[in-house]
């Protein structure tokens, strides 16, 4: 079943369809949320919040404008950024303070580390992509974080994306070649 069929069922308020989307995309979304907030407990809470928003706002998703993941990513990013803007409130609610203490006493796993095609990029390309795609920075915030001029930062992002594109195309060619050989 493709995403459009599943989304159609979510629109009809079928919870099973939402859980199918969760099974497919929760890992990718948690990868983003966790790299933004760096606290697993909070990240999982925000992931749950993200899927509740997906459930409630699926009517505003327009498949002609882009993939489901892109739409869900935007929700996850905005939900996380909103939560990070009011950290005090979060700490005061429920058991978060306990977990924060725990986080302070035990070193948190380094979720900043990136995998896949990104690993093959130069460190400055990696960081540029990581800042804007995985850590929720806007271009205007990210170039300051990296300490390079905005123009330079933009070209880093474009170069990185171009390299990633080549890399994924190569993967496709290799895959095609392997299939041809097997055939």
């Amino acid at each position, binding site marked *: 079943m493709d995403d459009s069929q599943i989304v159609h069922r979510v629109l*009809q*308020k*079928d*919870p*099973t369809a*939402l*859980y199918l989307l*969760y*099974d497919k995309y*929760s*890992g*990718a*979304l*948690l*990868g*983003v949320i*966790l*790299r933004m907030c760096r606290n697993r407990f909070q990240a*999982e809470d925000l*992931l*749950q919040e993200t*899927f*509740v928003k997906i*459930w409630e706002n699926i009517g505003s998703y327009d498949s002609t*404008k*882009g*993939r489901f*993941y*892109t739409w869900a*990513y*935007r929700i996850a*990013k*905005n939900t996380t950024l909103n939560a990070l803007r009011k950290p005090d409130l979060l700490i005061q609610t429920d058991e978060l303070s306990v977990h924060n203490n725990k986080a302070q006493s035990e070193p948190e796993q380094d*979720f900043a580390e*990136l*995998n*896949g*095609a*990104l690993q093959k990029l130069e460190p400055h390309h990696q960081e540029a*992509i990581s800042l*804007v*795609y*995985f850590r929720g920075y*806007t*271009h205007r915030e990210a170039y300051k974080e990296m300490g390079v001029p905005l123009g330079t930062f*933009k070209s880093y*992002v*474009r170069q990185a*994306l171009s390299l*990633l*594109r080549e890399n*994924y195309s190569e993967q496709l060619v290799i895959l095609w070649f392997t299939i041809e050989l097997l055939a």
Partner: protein
Amino acid sequence: MKKNKILEDGLLEKYLLDELSDNERLLVEDAIHKDSDLRAEFDVLEANFEKMAFENAIAPNAHVKGELQKRIGSPGPTERNRWPLMAAASLALLFLLTTFWMFNKWQAANDQLNLIESQTLSLQERLGVLEENYELTNNRLQLINSPNTIPLILRGNEKVPNSRAVAYVNHQNKLVVVNPQGLPNLPDNQTYQMWSDVDGEMIDMGLLPNDKELVTLKYIDRAESLNITIEPAGGNDHPTVERLISYVTL
């Protein structure tokens, strides 16, 4: 917005990341919609973005899905699917009420039908009795009025003075009918009985209860006279001649 500007300014990436102002977003969306090259560019960007995300995915703990399921609810009839169910339930209720109403109506109709049936039966019985009575009366009238019928008066002797019975004898039809109402009443253990005299022998014609208007008796051939005696209730095999109260010669 021009394609080159969108590409050079990295607006596709910013659009993907939701970093554009509302105005810029609408312009880029419009450009993607109109320009197939831009559309293809954006498709690749999105696909690579998604691949990158999957390569850097981190699996959440299982309890997160459980928590989500608690908040969203388990699969079942959805809001939209509840309407047909409610419609079906309403129809079922309507059907039930209609059935109940129809059942009551049917019961009432059935009771009335039973009543009418029993009334009809009773009327039929009464009609049967009336027809029987009418036939009997008609036969008797015809018998009495027939020119071949001989009316005979049986006057009571000294035992029952001033009493009388009337016999109608029709030799052609071989019928005898007697009106015994002029005979005095007897105790319960006694009855009147009628006999025909044939060559000196008394032959039983039947009982003659005086509470009836007309009594049909057996016609006996070659009878010379008709005789009435008082006998024990239920009648006798032989006449008690001592208690002969009336006779008439034919």
